[in-house]
């Protein structure tokens, strides 16, 4: 009864200044909600990063060819071949014991058209020369037909497998299987033998690996690519043209045991750089190491986010203290009356503490509700930007497009306990100050 009365009284006093109380609650609301938000977003981002790294395969080592910066005055006579060669591919797959297999990959941006619809504007896409294993390593799934087969590799067949998005663009109303695909720049035809399921793009990792968008890919046997397309690439744009010559854009090295990955990576580096230690046209990416790093970074990241959230909670707490100090001064007279009518110091302390705790608990509970809305809100914001400002959406970093916040369950009780704690800590000083007042002085206060 008495305790009930104390709380009732506290809430009544707070409702005497609804605006002031609401603003104070807002401080804690923001603090608690931001704890949950920041942790949820942090968790979402690190999970996403981890997923992307895992997509690359922890047991893989990726070697990319990198085009050196254009030298001015480059012409046909001074073409420099760069990147991985087929000889190196062979070397890697035969000399290192722990290497299970090496997948050669060659990528080329090209335009695609459908022969049945010659008037349509060709679509920009990417021609990828690869082997059957590629589907497994990059986790591509076939929706219809089949992926490239070993026989097609050996026979250098004129066949291709296309990605879902490209299929729906080129064949809006037809079945793409067994149709002929036309490459206007190469004057080549390929028969479509398979259509893939949709696959999410991977994000760029650590600067050494560009993001890969698989949605507009056409896969052909690597052998066919060598035979029909060759190694030299001439691109005319406007009045100028550029030439580049490379044999392979990437080698994905599969290692049998994950434990052997770091050691194998060193051997691969040593093999490729044996003639020129400063070789700039290749990059070795080890997803396994990135994964380990990501796990370590994740902890730091969460701590950092927690710190920011803690600061906002402290700011909220200072807000409470500020208001309560003002309230105590304003209610000096009331304190005097209560003391004269028999209130002990502890009664006064309790009364003011009840008020600050009420404020912070209301802030905490609404803050938790606000925090739980995080995934929905992020989704809504993303939708709004996508629909309202597509240009801006296109410029968003990849992680912002795919990341979904994940509420860390522990953050809810933690946020709540912290909010109560903040109420007590920041309410204690004003409450004790109120209690220490001399009743005679307080009664005389105007």
């Amino acid at each position: 009864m008495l305790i009930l009365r104390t709380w009732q009284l506290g809430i009544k006093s707070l409702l005497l200044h609804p605006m002031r109380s609401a603003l104070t609650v807002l401080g804690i609301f923001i603090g608690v909600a931001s704890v949950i938000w920041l942790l949820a977003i942090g968790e979402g981002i690190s999970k996403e990063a981890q997923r992307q790294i895992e997509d690359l395969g922890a047991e893989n080592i990726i070697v990319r060819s990198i085009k050196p910066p254009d030298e001015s005055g480059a012409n046909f006579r001074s073409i420099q071949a760069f990147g991985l060669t087929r000889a190196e591919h062979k070397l890697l797959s035969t000399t290192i014991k722990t290497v299970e297999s090496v997948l050669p990959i060659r990528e080329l941006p090209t335009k695609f058209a459908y022969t049945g619809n010659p008037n349509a504007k060709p679509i920009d896409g990417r021609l990828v020369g690869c082997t059957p294993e590629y589907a497994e390593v990059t986790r591509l799934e076939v929706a219809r037909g089949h992926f490239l087969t070993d026989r097609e590799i050996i026979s250098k067949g004129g066949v291709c497998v296309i990605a879902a998005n490209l299929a729906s663009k080129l064949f809006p109303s037809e079945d793409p299987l067994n149709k002929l695909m036309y490459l206007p720049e190469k004057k080549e035809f390929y028969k479509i033998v398979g259509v893939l399921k949709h696959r999410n793009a991977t994000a760029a990792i650590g600067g050494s690996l560009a993001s890969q968008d698989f949605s507009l890919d056409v896969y052909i046997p690597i052998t066919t690519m060598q035979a029909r397309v060759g190694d030299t690439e001439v691109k005319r744009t406007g009045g100028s043209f550029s030439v580049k010559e490379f044999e392979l854009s990437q080698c994905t090295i599969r290692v049998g045991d994950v434990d052997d990955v770091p050691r194998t990576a060193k051997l691969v580096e040593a093999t490729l750089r044996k003639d020129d230690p400063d070789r700039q046209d290749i990059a070795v990416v080890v997803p396994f190491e990135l994964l380990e790093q990501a796990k370590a970074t994740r902890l730091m990241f969460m701590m950092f986010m927690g710190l920011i959230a803690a600061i906002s909670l402290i700011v909220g707490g200072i807000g409470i203290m500020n208001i309560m100090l003002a309230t105590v001064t304003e209610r000096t007279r009331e304190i005097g009356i209560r003391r004269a009518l028999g209130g002990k110091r502890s009664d006064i302390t309790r009364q003011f503490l009840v008020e600050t705790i009420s404020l912070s608990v209301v802030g905490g509970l609404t803050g938790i509700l606000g925090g739980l809305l995080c995934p929905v809100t992020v989704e809504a914001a993303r939708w709004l930007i996508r629909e309202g400002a597509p240009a801006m959406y296109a410029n968003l970093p990849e992680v912002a497009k795919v990341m979904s916040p994940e509420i860390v369950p522990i953050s809810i009780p933690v946020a709540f306990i912290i909010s109560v704690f903040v109420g007590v800590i920041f309410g204690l000083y004003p409450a004790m100050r109120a209690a220490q007042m001399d009743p005679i002085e307080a009664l005389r206060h105007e």
Partner: protein
Amino acid sequence: MSSIPTVKSNDQTAETNGQNVLAARVRELQKHYVLKSETVRALRGVSFDVPEGDYVAIMGASGSGKSTLLNLLGCLDRPTSGSFVLGGDDVATMTDDELSQIRASRIGFVFQSYNLIAQLTVVENIEVPLYYMGQLNAESRKRCKQLAAMVGLGDRLDHRPTQLSGGQQQRVAIARSLVNDPYFMLADEATGNLDSVTTDEILALFQMLNDQGRTIIMVTHEDEVSEHAKRMIRLKDGEIQIDKRIENRKTFPPEVIKKISMGTD
């Protein structure tokens, strides 16, 4: 009109001063304040008894020690020396918490500026001392309503102080001062903020309560107010100058007293 029991039976220190039981006994009360290097002797040994049922007006010019005595009688402060016995206990040596307990259970305050708590209703204001005594229950709520009715505010139980006139607020304060069934009521310039008509209403209420056996100690500087008391103590320079029974005491006729509980405003 409700009757509220007033007789204290456990007063062991009651001196057989006449035939009355004592509500309060003050002996050689001194209070010194230290201001910078100077010691101000606000009270220099004050002694008097207040028998139960007495109606005392304490008077004196400013600086006479009137307020200091009031604070001591109200247990808001502790004397430098001397004793103040209230219901068998010497409160001069009590701790802060014990004094709070005494204020809640044995003293009924009435202030010049009413001092009601703004966020509480009439009934809740009357309940405050009980809240600090830890005696809130359905029965006490009934009693608070009775007291409100007695001072003529039975129909305004759920009003806030700001919705009441000065006289009505003071009557709520009087009802509050009675809720703990105190040894004495301590009124500090209780009519100081009121016009002459309302002053008379409050004084009539005091007279009614005193007639019912309540002990009242009233601090005032107005002669017209003190003339309604039975006894006058005048302080000067921290000492009692005059302590006398008032002859030709002014009283209100019975028909005025009867009107009180009927909500005159």
